[in-house]
């Protein structure tokens, strides 16, 4: 992740473009919700129900039943969602304005500096950063801030790519209609860039769900504590359960964010 790496869309973007292209062909006007959207939650629900049935049939020892009960798991899951969504929101609040900033003509010079900061944030291992900051501060905010820095790059990159991908002709037309620079940005550029920015935001969200467990020692809550606890106390059943739950959570949040993204996309390019 060297600094001079050219700006390229995040790993998720091409797939996103792919689906967009396919959707374009298959139906002219696609609704926000489609039958196909039911596949992911159905599969996840199936796995979770199977897991639940299997666990409730087993004899659990004290440690296992201390972790695997409804209240503590619900708590941990809700906290996990809360922390991850906070991170994703914060990333959007920081990275989208930064992306807008470095694509404006007057502030374009800042681009290398901003990208360098974001690159360093992502290249440094979140594990070590969490440990380092954990010496001085623990709790919700340290974890959220570090992981925000960690996942900001994907949104930043996609914002830049999305804004630069807007057709010059469209911009010219908007300007020719007498729109101010701000109006062009808010009503033309940003709406057109939503699919790309959204793909970046989904990557950031999934990254957040996956790295929040690493904050287990910083007391930010979430499914990390039971997971690492289970590994250290050597309880494969618990490890398995929590791992499946984290995976299910990631898939579901990606799914929900995907629908949200589609809802935010203007009708013409949906």
């Amino acid at each position, binding site marked *: *992740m*060297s600094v001079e790496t050219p700006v*390229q869309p995040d*790993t*998720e973007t*091409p*797939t996103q473009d*792919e689906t967009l292209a*396919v959707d374009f062909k298959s139906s002219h006007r696609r609704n926000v919700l489609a039958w196909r959207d039911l596949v992911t939650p159905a599969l996840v629900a199936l796995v979770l129900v199977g897991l639940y049935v299997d666990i409730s049939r087993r004899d659990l020892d004290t440690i296992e039943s201390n972790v695997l009960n409804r209240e503590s798991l619900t708590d941990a899951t809700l906290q996990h969602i809360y922390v991850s969504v906070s991170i994703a929101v914060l990333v959007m609040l920081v990275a989208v304005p930064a992306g807008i900033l470095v694509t404006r003509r007057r502030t374009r010079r800042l681009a290398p500096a901003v990208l360098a900061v974001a690159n*360093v944030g992502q*290249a*440094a*291992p979140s*594990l*070590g*950063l*969490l*440990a*380092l900051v*954990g*010496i001085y501060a*623990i709790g919700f905010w340290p974890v959220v801030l570090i992981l925000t820095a960690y996942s900001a790059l994907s949104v930043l990159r996609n914002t830049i790519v999305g804004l630069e991908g807007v057709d010059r002709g469209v911009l010219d037309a908007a300007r020719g209609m007498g729109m101010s620079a701000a109006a062009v940005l808010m009503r033309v550029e940003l709406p057109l860039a939503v699919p790309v920015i959204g793909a970046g935001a989904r990557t950031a969200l*999934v990254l957040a*769900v*996956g*790295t929040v*467990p*690493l904050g*287990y*020692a*910083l007391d930010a809550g979430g499914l*990390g504590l039971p*997971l*690492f606890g*289970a*590994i250290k106390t050597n309880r*494969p*059943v618990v*490890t*398995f359960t*929590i*791992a*499946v739950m*984290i*995976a299910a959570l*990631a*898939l579901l949040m*990606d799914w929900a964010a995907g629908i949200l993204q589609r809802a935010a996309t203007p009708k013409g390019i949906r």
Partner: protein
Amino acid sequence: MLLSLYTVLAAVAIGLLIAILTYRSRVRADFTIATAAVAFTLPSVALFGFLVSIVGSNLLAVFPVLVLYALLPIVRNGIVGLQSADPNVIDAARGMGVGGFRMLWQIRLPIAWPVILAGIRVSTQLTVGIVAIGAFVQKVGLGTYGYDALDNLGSVNTQNKAIVCILFVTLIALVFDAVFVVIRRFTTPRGARA
């Protein structure tokens, strides 16, 4: 560090094989990319945990996860790269009597090479990061220091260990990146250079 190297080598071999087997048919290619994307959505911590609970704490629980993650960028860029050869070039080659295997080896692969290499580069960076996370399964690599620090927050060496983890992981990532710049310079066919 060696582990990252093995992972990337394995992923390159498997990934290119998958790409070569699937790039011809659009349906198969889309399906492969979609499957890889789903696998990519699963958090590495969860996959590590999943495998640990099945095979126990050893390298067998680390390596497959690493390879799985490293696969996605390689497979996708491989497929995209192999599909991207200009139809006119393919036509010209066929007109010169180039057959199936040589078409792949001498025409399509060299044209796709910069794209494939970019994929390998991304997957190397990913792997270096995920190897660190996998250290909780089996004490390998620099992640060990990171977890040691997390588990002993506030002890004398916490800060040192955390810094070791951060600095060296970043350093390795940068070194790998530099290696790729060199590889790209020397292996890109002259005509395909930008």
